[in-house]
């Protein structure tokens, strides 16, 4: 890989870190990191005057995220193709896991408003699992760029 392209990818990783930071701040501010807060945000709470979310409202919020998650993951993962990790079996597992956790993160709210409260746990788990996988991919790319 050319040195200039490595530089470009390193900057992309920095931007992605900023994107993740803003996502965590937004999640913390709007929803919260406890199961009760997740349930209150989607199902609503009469005591706290929080209105319940409708499927239409969630779909409106989810719509740009479906495209953006797909694009963001594709761009990030395709950089792995330029490294030695391309031929490793674990890379395939990583790709599957990243896309699956992203899908869960996006679509669990529909299950929560359908009455399956258990999915609040999955929503939180998939959010942190997705972020952890992204950070792990950052580390793999960073190591490949700097040391290979």
């Amino acid at each position, binding site marked *: 890989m*050319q*040195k*200039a*392209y490595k*530089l*470009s990818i390193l*900057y*992309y990783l*920095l*931007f*992605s870190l*900023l*994107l993740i930071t*803003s*996502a965590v*701040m*937004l999640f913390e*501010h*709007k929803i919260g990191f406890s199961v009760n807060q997740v349930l209150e945000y989607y199902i609503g709470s009469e005591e706290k005057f929080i209105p319940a979310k409708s499927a239409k409202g969630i779909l409106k919020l989810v719509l740009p995220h479906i495209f*953006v998650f797909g*694009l*963001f993951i594709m*761009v990030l993962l395709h950089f792995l193709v330029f490294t030695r990790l391309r031929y490793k079996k674990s890379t395939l597992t990583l790709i599957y896991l990243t896309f699956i956790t992203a899908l869960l993160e996006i679509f669990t709210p529909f299950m929560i408003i359908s009455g399956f409260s258990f999915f609040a746990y999955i929503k939180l788990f998939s959010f942190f699992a997705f972020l952890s996988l992204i950070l792990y991919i950052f580390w793999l790319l960073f190591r490949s760029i700097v040391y290979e």
Partner: protein
Amino acid sequence: MRFTLINNLQKDSTMSLILKGLLVFMLLFLLSDILVMKSSFGISAQTINTTLFGDEEAYIDPISESSFLEFWHTQIFFIMMTLLTLSAIFIRVAKRSRTLFTNIVMTSAIISLVSLPLGFYMSKFFIDIYIWTYFIWHTIALYMIFYSFWKLNAKSV
């Protein structure tokens, strides 16, 4: 990005045309971004301060934290995608100055995005840094677009 693997972009008229089309859209995006920011968020210290913190005399409410975070989040995504694509084209066509300009455009864009929440949560001082770096990365990005366009029209890349 397939175009990063083509030996001579100028000879590949199809890929060259596609990239020129993309550059035109990037140019329109950057210019529109300035116009939209001017009319909505502000591009001077006074207008940005009014948007972020409100103005009692003019009866303007400050932006809510939730709206601010959503705005910041969206800006990061669009800027990172635009600059990654632009730098990939620029690196492919420019020879000597590519590292320098990539460094300047990326660094100034990152500083601009970091100084925005710092200005909102910590000190108004960072708003000035945001404005300066915002215009620096826009100017450099516009130069990179025009240079890439010119190079794609040149005899050999």
